[in-house]
């Protein structure tokens, strides 16, 4: 089965009783890594202003090399919960978790001017195929079942 990136989000948020496809799982695993990294790096940036918290300081606190700390801060790379906890702890913090329902996440109306917007996503519209097929029946020119085409609007 071919699944588009956008279908992946919809299938994850729909709560259908079907297995999640590998691409969807890969996407959300990457998202979790990326968010954990962003939290740590943002904290480091805000605390390093007074020069007390540095990479060398964290390295000493965790008994690791400064190069390892640089690698952790520079990109999310296969972090574990232990990595996250250690880095936050070294800066005097601890992780605190929260969850968010996917279907509650709404499209933002803040876009770069070059963005070609998908109207249905931007307005949170759901366009359903027309269920009344009497018009199609009156004009059909071929035998066989009438296909109900999905409608997609773009601007």
């Amino acid at each position: 089965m071919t699944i588009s990136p956008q279908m992946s989000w919809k299938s994850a948020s729909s709560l259908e009783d079907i297995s999640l496809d590998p691409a969807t799982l890969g996407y959300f695993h990457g998202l979790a890594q990326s968010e954990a990294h962003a939290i740590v790096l943002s904290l480091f940036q805000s605390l390093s202003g007074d020069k007390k918290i540095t990479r060398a300081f964290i390295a000493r606190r965790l008994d690791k090399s400064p190069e390892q700390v640089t690698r952790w801060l520079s990109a999310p790379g296969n972090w574990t919960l232990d990595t996250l906890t250690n880095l936050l702890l070294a800066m005097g913090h601890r992780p605190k978790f929260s969850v968010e329902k996917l279907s509650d996440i709404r499209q933002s109306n803040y876009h770069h001017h070059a963005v070609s917007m998908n109207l249905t996503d931007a307005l949170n519209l759901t366009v359903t195929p027309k269920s009344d097929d009497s018009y199609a029946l009156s004009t059909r020119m071929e035998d066989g079942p009438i296909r109900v085409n999905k409608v997609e609007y773009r601007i």
Partner: protein
Amino acid sequence: MSSFDLISATNGTRVHQWIPVRPGPHTRVVYLEDALYGEITLGTDHRIGGLWQDLDNFSLGELITVGYGPEATCMMKNLDPRTDEVWEIRSKDPKPQIRIFGRFCAQDVFVATHATYRDHLGNPWESKFEGNHWPQEILRCRQIWEQLCQGAAPHNGRSINDYISANVVEVGKLA
């Protein structure tokens, strides 16, 4: 015509704008060259999901780390020679690692020309005759760019914020 105008005009044919998977503020833009777009959007495996997330991370204005030259770890890198204005998005997880090459055509607008597995690139410290394939990929990026932009120069800047306006950290400047 600027490279930005040319790229915008060919959206939907020679390039395709990446529509982020998850909702959010679409504050940066990635255009993918037609063949690359096909490869990325038709994939269905765990690895491709990680790549979608990396493209979303850029497009949705999330925190990006940028490096230059010998800085080994970062999410995006301006490759040497920097005057070529060739960048790579580094998609590191899950393995195998993928590198997406491209250039900026405006501030916050990245044009991805092609991609390759990191393992195919060899050792960057070797010469191009001994298994360093980065110069080859930089040349390929420039060639694809030439086809897309017909001689128009890529966007260039003096500081990182000329390329990425906000939420960016230069790895070399970490305290």
